């Protein structure tokens, strides 16, 4: 059986899990190619106009491989953490795909609950049944996939740069270089290192997020907010760049709350949509990096002044 895995949305976090799972089940796995303008255009043609660009890109990935596959993995990820969700569009992803892309082969529509290994196992048994009746085989595939996922690493943490920027946002926005116009390379080019949400200690992330009046019920909102507040307040980075899809309801809330939280800490929001141009992006990033370095210089001066006055 040929199983297609679209390289969009949370592929960027759990792709390895899906690939190993289906390979172990004896399927031929077809992963769609890297996002490019063709895939984006396919997505624009085959999705509802109002959708955000990551969703459109996902549609594009699906459309690009559907004809070669017997089954396409459209993960309906309901929860990654207990009592939290990701986004309504994740819960309704199979419906969006089925109703927007004509002539779809079979897809996985089962709910995936991953707040607990047991729950995830249950979900994967359901999905595995699409391929084989052999429960033992599914169990083994699950274990292998789990192992591969746990030993894989996700996110970026540059050590060797003097200046550092936290790159926040949903994982697909942070990690798909086509969507974010290669912002990571751009920053490296400017001599700035990058740190992502995954490298903020979990405990702190939750602590900072829990200081809000109301608990988030979106997983990545909690991650981004908590990590952003932690990075800024402990001066782990020199600035924050938030990568957000245009018209993302979740980002719009996180950005506002985080802005309130970090005050005048350098904070840049980059919005992505299907028309975003490289030029505008680059100039804004350059200006932001300039500002950070100037600020650093100033602070450096201040603190050395401070030391002088103390010692004299």
């Amino acid at each position, binding site marked *: 059986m040929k199983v297609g895995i679209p390289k969009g949305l949370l592929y960027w976090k759990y792709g390895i899990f899906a690939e190993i799972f289906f390979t172990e089940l004896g399927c031929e796995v077809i992963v769609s190619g890297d996002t490019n303008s063709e895939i984006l255009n396919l997505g624009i043609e085959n999705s509802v106009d*109002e*959708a955000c660009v990551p969703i459109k890109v996902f549609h594009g990935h699906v459309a690009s491989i559907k004809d070669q596959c017997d089954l396409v993995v459209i993960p309906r990820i309901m929860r990654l953490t207990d009592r939290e969700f990701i*986004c309504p*569009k994740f*819960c309704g992803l199979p*419906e969006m795909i089925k109703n927007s892309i004509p002539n779809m082969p079979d897809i996985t529509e089962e709910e995936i609950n991953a707040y607990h290994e047991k729950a995830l196992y249950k979900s994967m048994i359901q999905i595995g049944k699409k391929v084989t009746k052999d429960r033992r085989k599914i169990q083994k595939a699950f274990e292998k996939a789990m192992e591969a996922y746990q030993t894989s690493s996700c996110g970026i943490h540059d050590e060797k740069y003097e200046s550092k920027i936290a790159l926040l946002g949903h994982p697909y926005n942070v990690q798909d270089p086509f969507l974010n116009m290669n912002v990571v390379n751009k920053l490296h080019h400017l001599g700035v290192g990058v740190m992502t949400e995954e490298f903020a200690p979990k405990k702190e992330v939750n602590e900072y997020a829990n200081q809000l009046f109301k608990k988030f019920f979106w997983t990545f909102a909690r991650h981004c907010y908590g990590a952003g507040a932690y990075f800024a307040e402990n001066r782990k980075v020199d600035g924050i760049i938030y990568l957000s899809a245009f018209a993302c309801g979740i980002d719009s809330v996180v950005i*506002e709350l985080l802005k309130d939280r970090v005050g005048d800490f350098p904070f840049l929001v980059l919005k992505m949509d299907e028309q975003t141009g490289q030029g505008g992006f680059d100039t804004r990033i350059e200006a932001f990096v300039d500002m950070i370095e100037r600020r650093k210089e100033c602070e450096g001066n201040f603190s050395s002044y401070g030391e002088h006055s103390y010692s004299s």
Partner: protein
Amino acid sequence: MKVTFPHMGNIHIAAKIFLDDLGVDYVVPPISNNKALEVGTMYSPEEMCLPFKIMIGNYIQAIEQGADTVIIVGSCGPCRFGEYCELQMNLLKKLGHEITFIVLDSPRDVGKKELLERAGLLVKESGKNNYSGILAMLKGVKAIELMDEIEKEAYWLAGYEINKGECKKLLHDCRQKVVSTKDSDQALKILKEYKKKINRVKMDSTKQPLKVSIIGEIYTVIEPFSNQYIQERLMDYGVSSNRMLTPSWWLKDLLGKVVKMNSISLRRASQEYLPLGIGGHARECIGEAVLAAKEGQDGAIQLFPVGCMPEIVSKSILPTISKDKDFPIMTLVLDEMTGQSGYITRIEAFLDLLERRRETSHVLFGN
């Protein structure tokens, strides 16, 4: 303490009765208006959804009249409504207003005790006991149920009325009269009176008006200002319109009752197209579209504010329903710029389409 609350359709009628009886000082914000939208938009983050912006406008206009406490109902679910209060508090604070927020969450999420404690703040302020608090609440609920029934009848009967404009006038009179008294019993009496009146409107039952369902995101469906008074416009066109989402439906939903009562048929209807809840009221939207087609209505209009996540999912499903059931559905996406003219043209074009379909089907089936 002087409390206020955001508008959502006729909710203020019930809220007023509740607060009058409780004896708490309050301000009803001016009915949502362009100025409210303007200030709301000015102060809100650009990408927040329209309901957020109008609500901010409501608060600011109420604060101008001395309000210092906001009551809001935060419902939790995978959507933004639940996150509103935090942002709104911060926003008002930045504008220099120290406002207390009393957030009434569904007991499912914060626990009964916490909810009662929060509600207790109000009762304490009034100096009355919990018992009178509950009585006041029940009266408020009764009022909103009556008001919703009157409104439902009026929107539907407008297609059949003999004296054009009578239903609309009754509806307006009723809304006006019921808020003019501070006596809750009097208010309930007025509502009951109008309920009788609306059922006595002279009708021509041989008429066959167009019938349209209004579906979509709950706030924009219920708050007429946000949808440019779409149902009242339909009344003017002599079209019967129908919507399931109302404040009383919403209240029941919050209290978790609907699940067992009136949404079973809806769930069944949505099953084929959206078998699970994804947040917001997407599932209701899908179920209503299917039911409307089944009930033989002529079409449905989906409303939602720009960027509304759950309704974008619904919108991707609706074309399939439309095709399967041969049932026209139009989507109107609302934002602060919803210019009157283009919007109205689209509604009119849709009604034309429905008319034409009827004519051709008459020819086809010879009746």
